[in-house]
């Protein structure tokens, strides 16, 4: 989780990813942020987040994204 928070803060240092849970719903992240985060997450965690995972519920918070990562690692 720490690694994920680091990745997300590098892309958007202005957001407090530990508490924020409406990243998509409140339009806090834009598409370029998502691409940057997904690219780094795929590299660091050796997974492939695919287009069907690109849903608001998976990106609304760091916690949700971390759950997705764990699910993909398990698969």
């Amino acid at each position, binding site marked *: 989780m720490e690694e994920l928070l680091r990745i997300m803060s*590098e*892309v*958007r*240092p*202005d957001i407090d990813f530990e508490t924020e849970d409406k990243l*998509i719903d409140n*339009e806090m*992240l*834009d*598409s*370029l942020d*998502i*691409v*940057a985060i*997904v*690219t780094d997450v795929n590299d660091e965690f050796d997974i492939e*987040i*695919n*287009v*069907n995972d*690109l*849903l608001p519920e998976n990106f609304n918070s760091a916690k949700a994204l971390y759950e997705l990562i764990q699910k993909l690692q398990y698969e």
Partner: protein
Amino acid sequence: MIRNALEYLEISAKKYPDKIALEDEHEKLTYTEYITKAKTIGTYLLKRGLDKYSNKPVAVIIDRNIRSIVAFMGVLYTGNFYVPIDYTLPAERIQLIYDTLDPIAVIDARTDTGKAVEGAIDFTEASSGADIDEELLKKVRSEAIDTDPIYGIFTSGSTGVPKGVVICHRGVIDMVEAFGETFGFDDGMVHANQAPFDFDVSVKDIYNAMKNGGSIVVVPKRLFLMPKLLLEFLVKYKANTIIWAVSALRIVSDFKAFGAVEEKPDMRYIMFSGEVMPIKALNYWMDNLPDPMYVNLYGPTEITCNCTYCIIEGKQNELKALPIGKAFVNTKVVLLDEKREKAVTKPGDVGEVCVGGAGLALGYWNNPEKTKEAFFQNPDITEHPSLLYGTGDMAYYNEDGNLVFAARRDFQIKHMGHRIELGEIEVALNAIPFIDTSCCLYDEERSKIVCFYQSESDDTKAIIKFLSDKLPKYMWPNIFKRYDRLPMNKNSKIDRVKLKEEIRK
């Protein structure tokens, strides 16, 4: 001969009165409705005092909607030029733009204006609040010439003040004529507009569609978060032409979105620019959509969108760089040596891309120093004035005579599709009370802006808070490294070479 870009609208409105010209999520307009609204806005503005001015800037507060485009044309009917302004930018930056621009009027074209901007003219009021005065509009046109400004677009400036590039009607006319001739555009084109209207990539959608009697569909911004929905949108709206930033095309390829949709969009043209297109991404598009014409476009805002193009025939070798190609018709492109004195012609030798021709910008609004620096006399011509613009991009000719981008000669970078002067970020950083000095570098490999700063306190959050009042989000550094003392070189300047090595580690 076309002398004013509005003539394209007038010709297409005669030829295709009932055809849909513009469409977004909320509304659509036929060519007749488009021109009627534009002329109404023109008349409204002229009667509200704009008839006292010509060739002066009118700010248009833009949105991802077709009203923005109609407002632009309304401004042109007054004989003045438009400057798109994005109100999601920090207020201080908007103020800097206004300080330089001193607009004679502001039109708010946003669908949901939220908090009204003081003194701004509302779009709905302007587009319905007057009866078209053809005589008045005719009189304005009779005084127009093709070197009159058509729009201004602000870009990052190294001293901390954004520069307003001013383009003339002739430049836009020259661009659309060259595109039509080179790529065979026609009235069946449906442009899926991705580029925000304060980016000149959108100029290609607006005026090519207008000239050919094609149509524009404005793609909502949020779809670029969800590539599957984006492809479905393109199918639904029967879009067949994409003129996008590389980063937008990558959203589809990075997520392999074609695999998730049942029907693929029926594309005729796929054109991209803004940064180097990764071959892997391009090949993914070509695998899934083999039929459209793929074109790599290159050029700075200062030459009216683009100066070179490269039509890509089939999938490319991933190890080779994609060329930026050859000059468009009626456009001069030369490589010059470091002193901008001699042409570089030998294949493989690197020189600065310098451009000239009818598309050349008139200069930077209200900024003679920067204009003089960037626009200079062509060294090959000594007998009469002839200007070139130095792009700062270094390139070389490959064996086929195509230009290939190599590097930048200065501290300008392309980050997330945006043209950014690292110096502008440094100016903002150095204004923070607890920062002694700073240096920003770009980590190309990871696409991150790295900030090295000298300070006693280590407070990234406070830095970002300061920056968020001054700079748009895409200009904020991604990585911060604090130093007690930044390394200096022999000339007592920050040692950028050494810091660059830090990044490589």
